[in-house]
């Protein structure tokens, strides 16, 4: 067991005028996850600490937060990889309103997600079987199927910090997943949404999104491919 000093940014808008740092010492294994250390605080030291988490195994994407200044999933990072001089600093995601402590208002994020029609658009009759697709066609959008909508990419993006109306990397990744799907017929509508002033052209190729993605999706590359699809009109 090792001792870890956790510095967590706290804010309760019903009580606090401005955010403050909560400092807690916990004992955990180096191979525990950052989430385990936060649980230790929540369950044994200060039950008022608020955070989101669900599966706690890197699948649901609920516990994205800034760990030592970078967007990470708390259930995805080990103590031994994040500890710096015995300390780990934890803050809520940037660019979204803080509801309490580590919980941010995800509604603007999901509104952008819904705006790009994140579902298969195809009105033709598939016949008695499912719509078939070659392995090559499936591979075209494989990388962007991995997104878990944790918002780590969108809230690491300077363009999103500057302008919350920007659809953001996660919505573009989700659009990419359908635009380049050979079974889908809604590419033109999605590209119209993404081609407007709050669409892909707000991306400044900063690569924060790619660095932040816990699933290792090449987010900036996907955005680049959507930019090209808009510029050339070609999606296949």
């Amino acid at each position: 067991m090792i001792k870890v000093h956790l510095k967590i940014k706290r804010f309760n808008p019903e009580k606090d005028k401005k955010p403050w740092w909560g400092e807690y010492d916990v004992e955990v294994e180096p191979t525990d996850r950052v989430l385990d250390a936060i649980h230790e605080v929540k369950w044994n030291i200060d039950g008022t600490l608020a955070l989101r988490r669900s599966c706690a195994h890197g699948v649901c994407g609920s516990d994205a937060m800034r760990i030592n200044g970078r967007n990470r999933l708390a259930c995805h990072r080990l103590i031994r990889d994040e500890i710096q001089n015995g300390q780990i600093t934890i803050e809520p995601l940037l660019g979204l309103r803080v509801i309490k402590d580590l919980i941010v208002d995800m509604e603007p994020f999901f509104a952008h997600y819904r705006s790009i029609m994140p579902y298969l658009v195809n009105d033709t009759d598939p016949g008695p079987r499912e719509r078939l697709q070659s392995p090559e066609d499936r591979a075209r959008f494989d990388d962007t199927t991995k997104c878990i909508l944790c918002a780590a990419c969108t809230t690491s993006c300077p363009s999103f910090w500057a302008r919350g109306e920007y659809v953001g990397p996660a919505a573009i990744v989700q659009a990419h997943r359908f635009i380049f799907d050979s079974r889908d017929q809604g590419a033109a509508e999605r590209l119209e949404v993404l081609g407007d002033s709050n669409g892909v052209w707000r991306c400044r190729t900063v690569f924060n999104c790619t660095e932040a993605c816990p699933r290792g999706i090449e987010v900036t590359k996907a955005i680049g491919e959507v930019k090209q699809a808009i510029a050339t009109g070609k999606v296949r």
Partner: protein
Amino acid sequence: MQNLKVIAQGARYRGGNPMWSWLLHRVTGVGMVLFVVAHITASFLTQRFGSGAGMAINAVYESPAFQLVMYFCVIYHALNGLRVIILDIRPSLMRFQRETLWLQWLTFVPIYALAVLLILLRAASGE
């Protein structure tokens, strides 16, 4: 104001080298705009009013120190812009984005070193 907000947020987020290169791109861009504004203002004041203020601004941006900063801004901004344009045109190269940053600095250093040498030689000769 938005730029300031983003730079403040960026300073709090540890995005690493790609983010610093983007921040520097912004700062050097603002530096060039300030230079052009100063240049136009100086020309206007000098030619329209024969003003001493115009000559004073001229003296600032013709100084070696200002030129060293300006050349840094122009060369960095141009090379980084070119790097981003190439990546945008060929997204398949984006997986090598860290290598492209190194390549950019490898290109920048000799070009800027030459500029520094010429500026300092000129300053030393008293021209």
